[in-house]
């Protein structure tokens, strides 16, 4: 079971900010799904602190890396192969606005490329989220100011999530945000 470490998104400021958020958020009875686990740093930080933990990635190198570290790893596209119900879903979104001529065509691409506006993966992810999140379940989503904070918060609100910015961190040229959303169907304004 070999994989190339250079084909996995390395631990960066966004990884560490999301790790800080999840350590504050988790409860002992949480059933957690991490989408796009990458280097698995976030998931590994909560092993043994929650009831269950499953990680996914579209990148074969990342799922093998996660599996080698003892995690329940599934190769998957976003939420596609899951039934209800997770109480906490964590996702370090591929959030960078990326033009066609900036694409690099390797596995790291999937970790970074958010399409022309940075929100392409988010808009693909959002409609499927309520299928796999328990009522009252929470979402921790990492995005950047380059992705458009207002647009992401509004889209989540319209789908029935109570939203807040849990943590933020200023970096050169951008600001990172961990958005916390709580799924509450009654608040849907569709």
């Amino acid at each position, binding site marked *: *079971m070999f994989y190339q470490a250079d084909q996995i998104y390395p631990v960066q400021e966004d990884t560490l900010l999301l790790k800080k958020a999840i350590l504050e958020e988790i409860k002992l009875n949480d059933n957690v799904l991490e989408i796009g686990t990458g280097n698995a740093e976030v998931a590994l930080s909560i092993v043994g602190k929650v009831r269950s933990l*499953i990680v996914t990635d*579209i990148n074969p190198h990342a*799922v*093998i890396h996660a*599996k080698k570290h003892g995690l*329940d*790893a*599934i*190769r*998957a*596209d976003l939420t*596609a*192969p*899951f*039934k209800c119900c997770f109480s906490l879903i964590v996702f370090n979104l591929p959030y960078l606005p990326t033009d066609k001529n900036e694409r690099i065509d390797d596995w790291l691409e999937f970790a970074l490329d958010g399409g022309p506006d940075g929100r392409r993966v988010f808009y693909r992810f959002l409609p499927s989220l309520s*299928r796999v999140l328990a009522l009252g379940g929470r979402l921790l989503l990492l995005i950047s100011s380059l992705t458009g904070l207002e647009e992401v918060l509004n889209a989540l609100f319209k789908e029935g999530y109570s939203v807040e910015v849990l943590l933020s961190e200023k970096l050169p040229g951008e600001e990172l945000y961990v958005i916390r959303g709580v799924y509450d169907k009654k608040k849907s304004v569709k």
Partner: protein
Amino acid sequence: MRRSLLDIICCPVCKGDLQLEVEEENPEEIICGKLTCKACNVDYPIEEGIPNLLPRI
């Protein structure tokens, strides 16, 4: 993959149930085998303990 994961996974395309066929298993988990969606007539492989549930149609 651990057998208990079967309760929470489904076909990534039609969301129907998956049928497990085991080729190799140890006391902890399934090492090698496949997950079949009969409705879509598609097999999803399990290799080295990792199910590959990327949509394939």
